């Protein structure tokens, strides 16, 4: 799978548990894999000044972001002995409790997937131009900043 670009990193709306389950299922034909590691980002119902976050609206500089995701993919395959790697990120509205980021790495051996997954998630958080508007229950909002 190394030579293929991900067909699409961005998905409109939340990433469903069915989608994730199905993605896992598709990897069961790849019998050189011994270890999968999956990171899921879920929207938190944070309470800020007594107001609760009900959703995040994601936007992105899509062309640049897709290029960054591509670079991350190339660099992860260079650094780590991965069999497969998939990244999906939501655009648009994702409600509290729903999943907005799905990163999936697979390798013959477990040590590799731990290192690779953390590397990939950190680079996504730091380098990809995605923006998040936290919507409160009273329809006010604030802009999310990664820490």
């Amino acid at each position, binding site marked *: 799978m190394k030579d293929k670009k991900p067909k699409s990193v961005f998905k409109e709306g939340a990433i469903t548990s069915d989608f994730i389950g199905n993605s896992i299922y598709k990897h069961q034909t790849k019998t050189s894999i011994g270890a999968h590691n999956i990171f899921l*980002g879920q929207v938190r119902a944070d309470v800020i000044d007594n107001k609760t976050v009900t959703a*995040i609206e*994601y*936007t*992105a*500089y899509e*062309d*640049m*972001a897709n*290029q960054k995701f591509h670079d991350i993919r190339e660099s992860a395959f260079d650094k780590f002995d991965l069999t497969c790697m998939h990244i999906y*990120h939501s655009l648009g509205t994702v409600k509290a409790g729903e999943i*907005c*980021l799905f990163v999936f790495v697979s390798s013959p051996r477990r040590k590799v997937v731990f290192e690779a997954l953390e590397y990939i*998630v950190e680079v*996504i*958080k*730091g*380098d*990809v*131009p*995605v*923006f*998040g*508007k936290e919507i409160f229950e009273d329809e006010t909002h604030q*802009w*999310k*900043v*990664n820490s």
Partner: protein
Amino acid sequence: MHIKVKYFGQIAEVTKKEEESLEFSGQLISELLETLHSKYQILKITDFKVAQNQELVSFETKLTGQDIALLPPFAGG
């Protein structure tokens, strides 16, 4: 020089637009930003990075691209 400037997230909120075209005769990103500061004063106190042709650049970079983007703090994931 004809430049397209894109705004994202909180920046698009304060400029009230997602992109605009500008005629500009300066040399550096910083000079372009001065022009934008005078147009949108709140940008002076707003945190953002600049991408030129989809690569982050410092404000002292020479303006070469026709594709400039003002990017507020990233919030992916």
